[in-house]
């Protein structure tokens, strides 16, 4: 099909003859283009354009230039800009042309504007009046042009000006205008959702428009809306299905056909909408099975566009509630893609497969040979897509092969973005599935040297944390550390100048901490290797600091070497290095002090962080008494700066990284990212706002949350130290198999591939019949959890100990457990209620707790990771039937009972478990409480809840894993969720896995949505503080809202309604004005200034966060609309 067009395009000569009527080119432009094509060098081109631009400049400023000439000039200016030359002096003339010219000039003027001016260009303001005029024009073409330009360049703050007019166009008699208006509104919705909130009803009208084009345009908006909250649009499923049926049935005008396929774009849009609606919703999915089946059946013509539809269809089938028959058909479709000789289809097949293997890993097996061919494909894009697919099917058995393939690819890759993306995945796989210590360390070495300084900081951080926190068994931990030390010493003995900084940092930290484990190596040697690095010029000063602190940690005995080093550095120009050298000298001379500052093998859990900095109180009061100025929060300082511009009072920026302050030696223990939650843990809101101080105190905080969720869990699977024998075995078998394999047959290439296949796809299928070489050994557990020594004893303990005081004791445990301090760092004493499980307690490095006699329930819980201090399910043996949801709030832990909470809603259920949730509003977080009820008469074991949400951060969680859930009982698990950046609606998804019979794990998915409103908290300030804060905030939004006039004082009524709906704090109401304050959890504040303006409420919002006012406005609108 494309041949036709290619042929037509090759008819290059005969250009001037082929000019069709309308396409006349002006002489000047023709000349310009011609002379440019004749040029031979870039330099000549530059000169020519320079001359051209100065001619244009002259012409535009001449008063005699007519509009018609101006139009031609503008086209030339566009041409110059396209070549990459600056013609910004013509921008204003483009606007003038759109303003003053006739229709024809306007068209060029608008085009120039949309090409020249970005959203946000200041000249755009001058366009508003022109657009307004044209929108009201009786000339259809002018209206069309105005709508086009509005959708293209209008920024957020200019939308309100044109919105009413664009909205009116939705009922315009001409379909082309309606269509453009719908698309313009769609664009507005993307830029500023709150501003088009009120016209949802009209979108609905557009959906049922008699013109299919308008209807198709409205689907863009619906797709977006449904993506944000599928639940609100379930009722439209029927309509979408009907539309799709009609399209498939060829009911649309032939005009909509594309290569005799009926309205493919429309079909795809509908398929996407349906898959969103049917996701995890059986009843809705059932409505669409038939039409999806038809879609799959109809798309049989051999054309790209039908494949595009098929791909979308397959994705939909795998997204919605599964139906075996459809899945089978879809799987066959994927086969057609993957096996197609057309490379584009193959690519799409791989992409589909990547999507599908998440649901059904076996599908990859069917296509293993193709996948292997693609892995060696000459096309980079195909290769990368294949690796993406392999990443999804990695398990403990094939990890070595897959990681090797990925590393091979990375070594030959030079695209930064690809490297960062894939290397992160390699690190993730290595941590998850490492078969043994040496492989793990070796792979991580590769990760560090390939990824280098492009690596996301959390990769080295996670790695170090893994080494440091260790697992249950000290012996195994030490073995891993020992491997690392040995491996690094070897690396350092070789060439080191090419090593990336982050690798050097990792090595020096590990050597500093664990070099002592390696008895056979002379400490002098370690010191020599590290010192040698210091001499290299390529080593950055940050790395030098890491090296120095490593040297500080290497035990005594080598004082002479150290002193020499300290001496030589004490004259360094870098103050931080000098300071470190001083510390080094000091500590190396005073072994007692060093023992105290850097205790060897100190437990990680022992580090307590006082985030409120209360230990400084004495110092502060002394300083204040001595006449020091009291601390002022940054915004206040900023404000004072503005008042007094005469002097530059701005402090110099820190010359040293904050983490290198005087307490840096101990800080070196955890070169980790800041814990997310800790920033919010301070008592004062200011604390969390000033980044400087929070970085300062948080250095020692253990990071419990990583990008994949709760780290100890991950670590539990990650460190390859436990069960080494079991883990190493399959790998060595595999290796052995590979070593034996080389066969003498000539067709070795094919053999190799088969072999590769067997190693790649091992552990995917169920039976050996599918795997080519027939390896069918039982896969070892993929997630190698740490052994749970107290598991069995604890469950038996429960039954023995459970007593009548259950409710009392559960209160007691929760009292001591929950929220004493917000960050995950629980005071050690309150954690160790496990005195009857000495093994875990010691592994945690926790001290004993005397209060535990009261705690009859402690033993029902288990610790997953050795250091998972906060997972503390408070299982409650309640007597209520679990289905009565209103009673569920009674199960809330005592200290949560008083918090304001939402209604309990049912999340999901199956015959064994039912889940409900409830939101609790705490000042610094939203607590999402999930009630897990056992509906059966038997004990359910190994219940684990997993919650994911990309937009939110989980600050802490409790009770998401439990050994067993007694019959007819309900357990409570809760997540503290933080929102850093506002989102209108946030969707949560999660799963509960549990075992009703041993060895048979069920999973139950659930999902829900949260809105920004759940994260808004009142900000209590005085009028005076409000005034000061107002001045210091920059981002503002103004809008008129509906005023509630039903009773009494309208302003008061409206503000109270908002206060009830959104937890705002009404600061003051004076006359017709009111001021209101709120904040996003304990983060960014948002101030609202409300004034009665006729029948409307003029709302003016300000916040330091650019997007927050919009979201709050959105919710205010909603709240008032629903009132």
């Amino acid at each position: 099909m494309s041949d036709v067009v290619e042929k037509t395009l090759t008819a290059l000569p005969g250009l001037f003859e082929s000019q069709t009527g309308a396409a006349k080119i002006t002489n000047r432009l023709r000349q310009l283009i011609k002379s440019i094509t004749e040029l031979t060098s870039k330099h000549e081109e530059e000169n020519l354009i320079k001359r051209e631009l100065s001619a244009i400049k002259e012409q535009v400023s001449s008063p005699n230039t007519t509009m018609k000439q101006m139009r031609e000039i503008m086209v030339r200016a566009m041409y110059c800009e396209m070549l990459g030359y600056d013609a910004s002096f013509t921008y204003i003339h483009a606007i003038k042309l759109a303003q003053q010219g006739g229709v024809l000039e306007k068209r060029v003027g608008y085009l120039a504007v949309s090409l020249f001016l970005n959203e946000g260009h200041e000249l755009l303001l001058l366009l508003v009046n022109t657009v307004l005029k044209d929108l009201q024009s009786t000339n259809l073409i002018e209206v069309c042009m105005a709508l086009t330009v509005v959708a293209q360049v209008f920024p957020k703050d200019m939308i309100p000006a044109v919105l009413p007019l664009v909205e009116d166009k939705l009922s315009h008699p001409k379909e082309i205008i309606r269509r453009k208006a719908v698309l313009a509104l769609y664009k507005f919705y993307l830029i500023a959702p709150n501003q088009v909130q009120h016209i949802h009803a009209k979108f609905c009208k557009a959906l049922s428009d008699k013109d299919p084009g308008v209807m198709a345009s409205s689907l863009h908006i619906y797709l977006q809306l449904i993506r944000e909250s599928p639940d609100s649009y379930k009722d439209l499923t029927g309509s979408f299905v009907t539309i799709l049926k009609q399209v498939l049935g060829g009911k649309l005008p032939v005009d909509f056909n594309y290569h005799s396929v009926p309205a493919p774009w429309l079909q795809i849009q509908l398929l996407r909408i349906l898959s969103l609606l049917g996701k995890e919703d059986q009843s809705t999915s059932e409505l669409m099975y038939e039409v999806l089946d038809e879609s799959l059946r109809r798309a049989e013509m051999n054309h790209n566009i039908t494949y595009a539809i098929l791909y979308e269809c397959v994705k939909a089938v795998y997204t919605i509630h599964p139906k075996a028959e459809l899945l089978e058909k879809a799987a066959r479709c994927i086969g057609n893609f993957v096996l197609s000789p057309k490379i584009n289809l193959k690519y799409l097949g791989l992409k589909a497969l990547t999507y599908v293997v998440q649901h059904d890993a076996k599908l990859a097996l069917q296509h293993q040979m193709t996948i292997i061919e693609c892995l060696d494909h000459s096309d980079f894009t195909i290769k990368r897509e294949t690796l993406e697919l392999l990443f999804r099917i990695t398990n403990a058995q094939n990890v070595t092969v897959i990681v090797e393939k990925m590393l091979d690819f990375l070594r030959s890759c030079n695209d930064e973005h690809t490297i960062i993306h894939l290397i992160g995945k390699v690190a993730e796989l290595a941590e998850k599935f490492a078969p043994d210590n040496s492989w793990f360390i070796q792979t991580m070495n590769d990760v560090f040297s390939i990824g280098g300084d492009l690596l996301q900081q959390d990769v080295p951080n996670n790695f170090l944390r893994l080494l440091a926190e260790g697992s249950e068994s000290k012996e195994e931990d030490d073995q891993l550390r020992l491997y690392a030390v040995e491996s690094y010493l070897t690396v350092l003995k070789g060439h080191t100048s090419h090593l990336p900084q982050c690798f050097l940092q990792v090595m020096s930290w590990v050597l500093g901490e664990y070099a002592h484990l390696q008895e056979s190596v002379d400490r002098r040697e370690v010191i020599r290797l590290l010192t040698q690095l210091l001499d290299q010029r390529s080593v950055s000063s940050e790395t030098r600091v890491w090296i120095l602190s490593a040297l500080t940690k290497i035990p005594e005995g080598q004082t002479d070497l150290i002193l020499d080093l300290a001496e030589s550095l004490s004259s360094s120009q870098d103050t931080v290095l000098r300071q470190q050298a001083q510390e080094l000298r000091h500590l190396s001379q005073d072994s007692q002090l060093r023992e105290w500052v850097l205790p060897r093998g100190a437990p990680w859990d022992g580090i307590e962080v006082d985030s409120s900095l209360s230990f400084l109180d004495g110092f502060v009061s002394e300083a204040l008494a001595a006449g020091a100025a009291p601390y002022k929060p940054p915004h206040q300082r900023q404000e004072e700066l503005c008042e007094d511009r005469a002097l530059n009072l701005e402090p110099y920026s820190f010359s040293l990284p904050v983490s290198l302050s005087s307490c840096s030696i101990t800080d070196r223990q955890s070169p980790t990212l800041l814990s997310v939650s800790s920033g919010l843990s301070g008592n004062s809101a200011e604390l969390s706002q000033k980044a400087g101080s929070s970085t300062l105190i948080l250095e020692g905080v253990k990071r419990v949350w990583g990008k994949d969720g709760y780290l100890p869990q991950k670590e539990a699977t990650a460190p390859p130290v436990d069960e080494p024998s079991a883990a190493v075995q399959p790998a060595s078998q595999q290796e052995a198999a590979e070593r034996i394999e080389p066969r003498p047959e000539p067709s070795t290439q094919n053999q190799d591939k088969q072999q590769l296949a067997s190693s790649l796809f091992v552990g995917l299928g169920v039976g050996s019949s599918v795997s080519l070489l027939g390896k069918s050994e039982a896969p070892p557990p993929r997630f190698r959890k740490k052994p749970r020594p107290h598991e069995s004893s604890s469950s038996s303990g429960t039954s023995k100990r459970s007593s009548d005081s259950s409710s009392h004791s559960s209160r007691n445990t929760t009292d001591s457990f929950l929220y004493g301090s917000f960050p995950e760092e629980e005071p050690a004493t309150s954690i160790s209620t496990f005195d009857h499980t000495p093994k875990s307690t010691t592994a945690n490095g926790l001290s004993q707790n005397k209060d535990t006699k009261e705690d009859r329930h402690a033993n029902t819980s288990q610790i997953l990771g050795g250091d998972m201090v906060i997972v503390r399910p408070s299982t409650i043996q309640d007597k209520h039937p679990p289905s009565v949801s209103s009673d569920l709030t009674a199960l809330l832990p005592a200290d949560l009972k008083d918090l304001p909470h939402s209604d309990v809603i049912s999340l999901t259920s199956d015959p064994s478990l039912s889940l409900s949730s409830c939101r609790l509003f705490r000042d610094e977080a939203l607590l999402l409480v999930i009630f897990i009820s056992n509906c059966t008469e038997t004990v359910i074991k190994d219940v684990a809840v997993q919650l994911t949400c990309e937009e939110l951060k989980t600050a802490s969680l409790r009770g998401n894993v439990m050994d067993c859930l007694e019959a007819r009982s309900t357990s409570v698990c809760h997540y503290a969720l933080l929102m850093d950046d506002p989102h209108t609606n946030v969707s949560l998804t999660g799963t509960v896995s549990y075992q009703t019979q041993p060895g048979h794990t069920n999973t139950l998915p659930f999902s829900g949505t949260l809105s920004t409103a759940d994260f808004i908290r009142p900000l209590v300030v005085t009028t005076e503080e409000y005034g000061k804060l107002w001045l210091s905030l920059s981002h503002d939004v103004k809008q008129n809202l509906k005023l509630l006039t039903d009773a009494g004082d309208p302003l008061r009524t409206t503000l109270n309604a908002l206060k009830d709906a959104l937890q705002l704090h009404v600061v003051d109401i004076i006359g017709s004005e009111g001021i209101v304050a709120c904040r996003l959890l304990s983060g960014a504040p948002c101030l609202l200034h409300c004034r009665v303006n006729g029948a409307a409420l003029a709302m003016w919002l300000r916040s330091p966060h650019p997007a927050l006012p919009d979201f709050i406005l959105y919710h205010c609108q909603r709240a008032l609309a629903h009132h």
Partner: protein
Amino acid sequence: MTMHFLLLFSRQGKLRLQKWFLPLPERERKKIVKDMTTMVLSRKPRTCNFLHWKDLKIVYKRYASLYFCCALENQDNELLALEILHRYVELLDKYFGNVCELDIIFNFEKAYFILDEFLMGGEIQETSKQSIAKSVEASDMLQEVRH
């Protein structure tokens, strides 16, 4: 299916048309144009028409001496984008009648007008060849009348 940008460039890497559906600073645009031309032009024959670039997907196709190249988000349908490019070529072909690179060079503003009727804000606005031709011609007619 939000398209981020659409570029037309020649085999020599000369930009013939650029349409940015999302606001980007000038410097960024120039860099993207440079990246796209080098990446696409260095593709070997018989490779697929898709590329990874940052977190976007690049879909390109060569028609005679011109490369049509657009960027989509990762979850979008690449084949469909390929057909969008094709439909645009068909539209140009219908308008110019046997379109060739020079038509687009000399009448680039017309190519923009056609594009504006076809895509709006990075989304498909109208897929019917007839309707697009009609509305472009309607505007051109005004030109004739005024002359």
